[in-house]
């Protein structure tokens, strides 16, 4: 979809009467006018602005962080003491299933999308993404999927087959409640959203870079997000197949996973993990991208080995498609398959190690500034390394046969996901908060946030290495005194430590929310460039104007912003400041483009998402619901295709000056 000019009234003849610009197509068929409000709740519901959409993703993500976190705390409360009575077995199964599902699909992926949506166009020097309405559709589909997934709690019990939902256990005989159906539908819908989003972002990166911004001058965050989108585009269809087969089995009696009919349960496992393994790189690469921006900024040094960091990211993505069966070492694959996947898994540690080296060497010899974003970034490097090391032990298949399905695995993936991904996300939150909201988050509260999370995380997941190697299995709702052992290996003791740790962790995260509120109320506005940053997104106001850049910047260097501020002298190996951020921004404003084209808001992405949601629920509730949903979908698609590409000029009642979003505009129904 092309970026369309918002019509303005300009004199046909200088000094003459204003003439409204004609818009295309000629008529809007009445009902298909586009919404035009730029403030208030309508401006959020019908927005196609990537920045607003990024914030919506962020709100979704942080909300589900709390939901998933509460689910985790309940699990830890149950396991804090022997024969816990907090949750019964059935509820426990639902709890760990939804904790995993929520954290993976409703927290991490939306948060990554929050950063990608907000910052990719800014880092690329663009005014929006390639397909703004598709972008809006993607976020509303994510929310719809998340709602459907969690509706199950209130409608008969949530899904309870584990986040990986192995069939035939997840089939109608062993999981008779509706929970799995909600899970399947919710994920299918969220998956469509992710697929649309990924196509959108790839085209954005390929096609909407500022002049001079070659791919090898792109910030590493943009590169990592590009790799992530490719992983999504090619892995999502595989889980779509798996979910569809399960849906047909549960809904229509197909026998895909019915062993009595000759089915092979490994089919589900292969399909799920062919998606599931790239998925974990989808989760962690954004965090890698974020700290690749933060570490150089706070070390006052350029990223060490930029090409290596970029290519290793791409290598991780590609090889990530070749290791999935390491999740299936104990499933009876046979020695040849196990050996091959074992070696492939060892191989993927190499590009990851390359990144760790590059990040460490970035810091070496730098002038480190231990602001909160940097603390989280260094935390990632340390904690992810621990997680990666335990991961390498899993790659040795005979060793994994003992570790699999124990808490040792839980320890591994929480170190890489929490220590890796979550710490990276928090680093990004602290780093980019002044850009998005105009204020720096409070440093003292940030320090408390970090240290409580760091200590809490290690208290919670550190002992799980011991618990796992001593044999505590996953997904068991109780442990008993007589199995718990004694002395150093008193598993009861370590379970208690882990549970206490989880609450320390929760308080740490609470500090983030406290910091958010405190900062909004009490902190002063931030300067334009509080961290002396390096990349293009900082050549904008705080927050950026609706159109991002007054003039699309021309790029001639990697770390373009940094090169505009400082002159390097290779002879004396020194840098002289030549311009401040304020001066650079003022220069851009002085040379603003005369005509700035912005996409108009639209009702139809939201309507279509709602229609798809109702259609999905119809799979559970029957044909009448499907018909209603289907009708909404049809109306929405036709509305989308046929709506005018711009709002008509009589929908506006503003003045002739184009100052962007501050006009109060009328809307039509």
């Amino acid at each position, binding site marked *: 979809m092309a970026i369309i000019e918002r019509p303005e009234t300009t004199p046909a003849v200088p000094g003459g009467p204003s003439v409204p610009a004609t818009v295309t197509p000629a008529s809007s068929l009445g009902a298909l006018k586009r919404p035009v409000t730029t403030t208030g709740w309508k401006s959020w519901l019908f927005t196609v602005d990537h920045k607003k959409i990024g914030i919506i993703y962020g709100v979704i993500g942080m909300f589900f962080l709390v939901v998933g976190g509460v689910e985790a705390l309940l699990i830890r409360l149950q396991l804090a003491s022997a024969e816990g009575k907090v949750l019964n077995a059935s509820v426990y199964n639902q709890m760990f299933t939804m904790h995993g599902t929520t954290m993976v699909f409703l927290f991490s992926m939306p948060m990554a999308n929050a950063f990608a949506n907000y910052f990719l166009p800014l880092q690329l020097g663009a005014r929006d993404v390639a397909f703004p309405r598709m972008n809006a559709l993607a976020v509303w589909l994510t929310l719809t999927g998340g709602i459907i997934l969690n509706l199950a709690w209130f409608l008969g019990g949530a899904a309870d087959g584990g986040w990986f939902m192995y069939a035939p256990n997840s089939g109608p005989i062993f999981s008779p409640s509706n929970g799995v159906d909600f899970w399947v539908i919710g994920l299918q819908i969220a998956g469509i959203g992710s697929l649309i989003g990924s196509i959108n972002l790839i085209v954005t990166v390929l096609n909407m870079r500022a002049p001079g911004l070659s791919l090898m001058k792109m910030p590493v965050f943009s590169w990592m997000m590009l790799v992530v989108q490719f992983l999504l585009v090619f892995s999502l269809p595989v889980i779509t197949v798996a979910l569809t087969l399960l849906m047909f089995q549960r809904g229509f009696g197909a026998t895909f996973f019915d062993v009595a009919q000759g089915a092979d349960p490994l089919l589900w496992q*292969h399909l799920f993990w*062919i998606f599931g393994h790239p998925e974990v790189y989808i989760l962690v690469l954004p965090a890698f991208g974020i700290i690749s921006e933060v570490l150089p900024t706070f070390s006052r040094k350029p990223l060490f080995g930029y090409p290596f960091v970029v290519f290793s990211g791409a290598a991780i993505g590609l090889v990530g*498609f*070749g290791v*999935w*069966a390491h999740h299936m070492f104990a499933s009876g694959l*046979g020695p040849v*398959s196990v050996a091959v996947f074992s070696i492939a898994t060892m191989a993927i540690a190499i590009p990851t190690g390359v990144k760790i080296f590059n990040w460490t060497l970035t810091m070496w010899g730098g002038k480190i500034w231990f602001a909160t974003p940097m603390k989280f970034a260094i935390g990632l490097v340390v904690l992810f390394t621990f997680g990666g090391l335990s991961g390498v032990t899993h790659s040795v298949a005979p060793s994994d046969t003992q570790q699999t399905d124990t808490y040792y695995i839980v320890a591994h993936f929480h170190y890489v996901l929490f220590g890796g991904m979550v710490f990276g996300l928090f680093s990004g939150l602290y780093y980019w908060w002044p850009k998005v909201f105009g204020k720096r988050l409070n440093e003292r509260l940030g320090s408390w946030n970090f240290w409580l999370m760091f200590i809490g995380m290690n208290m919670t997941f550190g002992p799980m290495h011991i618990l796992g190697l001593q044999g505590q299995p996953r997904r068991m709702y109780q442990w008993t005194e007589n199995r718990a052992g004694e002395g150093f290996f008193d598993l009861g003791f370590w379970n208690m430590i882990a549970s206490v740790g989880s609450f320390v962790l929760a308080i740490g995260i609470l500090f983030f929310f406290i910091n958010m509120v405190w900062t909004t109320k009490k902190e002063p506005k931030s300067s334009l460039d509080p961290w002396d940053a390096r990349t293009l997104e900082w050549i904008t106001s705080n927050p950026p104007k609706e159109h991002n850049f007054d003039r699309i910047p021309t790029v001639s260097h990697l770390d373009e912003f940094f090169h505009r501020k400082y002159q390097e002298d290779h002879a004396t190996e020194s840098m002289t400041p030549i311009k401040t951020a304020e001066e650079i921004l003022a220069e851009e404003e002085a040379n603003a483009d005369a005509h700035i084209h912005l996409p108009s808001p639209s009702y139809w992405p939201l309507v279509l998402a709602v229609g798809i949601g109702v259609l999905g629920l119809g799979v559970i509730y029957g044909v009448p619901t499907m018909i209603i949903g289907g009708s909404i979908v049809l109306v929405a698609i036709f509305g989308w295709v046929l709506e005018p590409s711009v709002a008509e000029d009589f929908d506006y009642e503003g003045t002739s000056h184009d100052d962007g979003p501050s006009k109060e505009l009328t809307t039509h129904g």
Partner: protein
Amino acid sequence: MSTATEQNTTTHGDSHEHGMSDAGYIKIAIILALITALEVSTYYIDFGPLFLPSLIIMMIAKFVMVVSYFMHLKFDSRIFAFLFYTGLGLCLFVYLWALATFKFFG
């Protein structure tokens, strides 16, 4: 900026012809039809040990011809081919390997 209101633009970017006339497309279609006829003939004629390989080769030939000529991939930017063939390549890789673990190929 011109004020003419053309209904169609004359700039097509990458979508202009690269020498395939309608006659050329019809020729490709005839070749595809002949290959299809040959494929169907395997139902009636015993190809012996050549049965499986020839069917696979014919399938691939038709696939590549439709992609390269009808979908114009041969004449368009390499980027499109990269996007599509990466998907196809990953598809072949993961699914053939998964089937192999099921001892599908013996």
